[in-house]
Structures are given as C-alpha cells and as structure tokens.
C-alpha cells in the first residue's frame, strides 16, 4: 500500500449495533462458516455500508427491477480445499452453487460470469480440469458462462485457485419465494440425503481423512425446482439450498426471517448410512454439515404430497422426505424431536462445526 494512504479506524457510530464485531478485530475462519459470525459480518458491516432494498432482503439472490421485467442476480465465491474431492471439484461447485442460488430464488438461471484468482505456480493441467468441469456443469444446467476475469497472486497467497461466479436469471412470473414467507402450518421438505458434501470434503482433509464411498452431492437443481414450481406454483413459500452451516443453519435463517418456529423430526431426516458413520467417527452432527445438491422447501400443507411426488420422480430428488413443519410456537427457533421422543433446540452454529473428542 502506498505510504501516504492511511487506513482509518472504522467508524461504527453510524451503523447499527457495532459491538459484536469488536470481539474479533481480525477475520477468523469462523466468519466463513455459514453460522452466526458470518451473519454478523453481513448485518453489521456489509449491509449498513451498501444499504439498498434489493440487498436487505438477504435472500440467496437479489431481485432486480428493470424496465420491462424482473431479474435475479446472485454471486458466490469458492475457496474449497482440497480443490478436487470425491464427487467433484471446485469447478462444479462454482457453477452449481450460483445456479442453485438463482433457482431457489424462483428464477431460471441463464448466464454466469467466472472470475479466477490463481496462485503463481498453480499447474495448468489442474486449471484445465477445473475449467472442463465447469463447462460440463454449465451445459448440464443449461446456462452459459459469458464473461470472466483472471488474476494471479504471488506464490503463497492463494491456495492454488479461488473462483467467483455471478449469475443472472429470469424470475418466473407469479412466483414469490423468500426466507420471510414461511407460515405456520407449512410443511418442510428436503430433496434428499444431508451431509454428503461436507463429509466428502472431510474424508480428504489432512489430519481427518478416512476411506469411504462418500461422494459430494454437488448438482444443479434448477431442473428439479422448475418441476416443483410447474406443479404447485405459489404453494412454495420458501426455498433454500442448505450449503455451509448445513440444514440447521438454513432452517434457523428461515425461522428467523419469517418469525416462526420450525419443528423437525430427527427420525425422518434422510442421511446416508456412511455419512452417519463418518459423523459418528468425528463427533459431527449431520444437520450442520454442508450440502451442494439439495434443496429445502417450505410448502403449503395441501401441496406437500404433490411436491414429494414430483421430487421423487426426478433423479436428484429420489430420497426426498417430509421432515417437519412450521409452527407459531417457539418463534425464531428450530426444534427437533429426537428419536427418543424428547425435544431439543438446534441453534445456529457460531462459526464452523469442528470434530470433537468429548
């Protein structure tokens, strides 16, 4: 940085509630974990600074009014390590992640941008593999990557490859979904097994690795979601893809945004046998583990059966399950009914979920 540029201490006085940020003067890994720390960065730093109506909705995509129509726009950055893991790579994640953010906002994804930040010394062969994976994923999802950028940072400053994608899609007419639209009585449906992606990553993470058949579930959901919306339309009140922070964080976010309580039945959560085993080994709870090819639907009760039928008919939704409902009790809280028949509160994680021995 040039010497004459002074970095001013942030002035929090014009922003709401500055206090929590003061606890962590530097970024810690937990800020990226999809839990409370990350949310606070949004609420207390980005939102006050950038404030505008489209942003304040804080949905997976922003809904933009242009003369003649509504677009949805979304962006996501991908920093996963390792870059290649069972079931996929950073390439598929980069395309499908943004496609899914648009799809769960009720839009048909159309166009993506792709920006790369590459570390000096990164092998071209690996980059080629990633780019090919992106091309394949884009073709499968029916989107085009129409613009991009490449930057290089010095060796030691970039973990090989970071990717940012931004996407735009056309909002479907007559569909209004949003995290604030869930209502008491809504049925909560998940499109398939939870925890696959996060545990696939764990299985190859240094210090924690294990052998298994677990593969990431990374997939583009726009086709499956279109089927659901075609069938029941506005009976879908809220949709989300539970990525970092897992199902628990997504359900908590919707409970809070809609000011309702959410109840789920643990016995009904679809979890692959091996994913459950891997979670037992590391002391993790599948409800907090990331997914990259699943959607959660909050659906008017009369349409729930049909939504399940449509999902089960789609290759990505074969293991869809009804897992709970929305209530006006215990507002803003997610409660699970355990296999024992008791209740436990499932809070949002603070940072990221860590393996435990205790």
């Amino acid at each position, binding site marked *: 940085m040039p010497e004459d540029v002074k970095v001013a201490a942030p002035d929090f006085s014009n922003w709401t509630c500055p206090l929590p940020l003061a606890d962590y003067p530097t970024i810690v890994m937990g800020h990226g974990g999809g839990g409370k720390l990350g949310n606070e960065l949004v609420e207390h730093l980005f939102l006050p600074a950038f404030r505008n109506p489209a942003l304040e909705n804080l949905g997976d995509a922003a809904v933009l009014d242009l003369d003649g129509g509504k677009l949805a726009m979304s962006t996501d950055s991908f920093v996963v390590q390792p870059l290649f893991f069972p079931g996929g790579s950073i390439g598929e994640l980069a395309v499908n992640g943004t496609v899914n953010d648009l799809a769960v906002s009720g839009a048909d994804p159309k166009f993506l941008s792709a920006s790369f930040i590459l570390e000096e010394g990164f092998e071209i062969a690996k980059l080629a593999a990633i780019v090919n994976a992106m091309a394949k994923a884009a073709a499968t999802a029916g989107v085009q990557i129409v613009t991009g950028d490449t930057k290089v940072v010095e060796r030691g400053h970039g973990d090989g490859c970071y990717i940012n994608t931004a996407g735009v899609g056309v909002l479907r007419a007559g569909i209004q979904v949003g995290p604030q639209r869930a209502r008491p009585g809504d049925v909560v449906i998940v499109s398939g097994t939870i925890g696959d992606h996060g545990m696939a990553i764990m299985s190859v993470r240094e210090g924690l690795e*294990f*052998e*298994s*058949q*677990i593969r990431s579930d990374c997939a583009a959901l726009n086709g499956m979601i279109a089927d659901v919306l075609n069938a029941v339309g506005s009976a879908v009140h809220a949709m989300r893809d539970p990525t970092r922070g897992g199902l628990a964080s997504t359900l908590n976010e919707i409970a809070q945004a809609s000011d309702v309580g959410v109840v789920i039945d643990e016995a009904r959560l679809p979890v692959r*046998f*091996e994913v*459950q*085993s*891997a979670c*037992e*080994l590391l*002391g993790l709870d599948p409800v907090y583990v990331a997914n990259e090819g699943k959607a959660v639907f909050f659906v008017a009760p009369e349409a729930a059966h049909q939504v399940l039928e449509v999902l089960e008919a789609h290759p990505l939704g074969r293991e869809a399950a009804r897992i709970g409902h929305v209530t006006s009790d215990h507002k803003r809280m997610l409660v699970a009914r355990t296999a024992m*028949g*008791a*209740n436990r509160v499932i809070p949002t994680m603070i940072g990221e979920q860590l393996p*435990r*021995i*205790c």
Partner: protein
Amino acid sequence: MCLAIPGKVEAISNDGLIRMGRVNFGGVVKNVCLDYVPEVEVGDYTIVHVGFALSKIDEATAEQTLADFRAMGMLEEELASEEEAFARAANRPQSNCPDGSCDRANQQVRESAGQQTDSKRQ
C-alpha cells in the same frame, strides 16, 4: 474425552514399531493403533477413541444386554399398574422445567405406554 465408537477389524499389520488395524466403522475405514488390544483379531469389534482401540467388545454380553432390555418391556406389560406409577410420578415435589415441557415428555411416555398396552390387548 469419551467419544469412542465401535468398529470391526478388517486387517492387521505390524510395521515393527506399532500394531495397526484397518477398522471399519459402518462403511468408513480408518487405520487404528491396536497396540492396546493384543487380544483383538480380524473379525472382532473394538471401541476406538482418537485412533486407538481401547477395548474389545464382548459381543455375547452386548446381545445379552439388549435381550435383557427387551425382556424388561414385556415383563412390564405383565406386571402393570402403570396408573400407580404415573400417579406417583405426578405428585412431584417440584418441576425442573417451569415451562412444562418435561410434563409434555412424560405425557408422551404415558401415551405410548397406553398405546402399547392397548395393542397387546387386541
């Protein structure tokens, strides 16, 4: 420091310094140190904590324990007077859940007992 889970030993190797096993935990396989359980052989189940097998699982005892639990359920049906037991439980000196959610859990226990008894009577 108690998170230890059962796994099945699939293979054993010895690199001279340490006896290691490939242990299968419900489809997930890890290499685990078996130095503390010299009696464990391939095919045995063992409890593993942070990469170390600590104890062989006595399978006969495990099965017996489960059988005892199941027998308890059936015996209960025969002896009954659940009404007495629940009436006693209902006269609690104090509740430790002011919001009554324990009461709800107890209610569920009572209800499922009622259902079980009813279905057996049919």
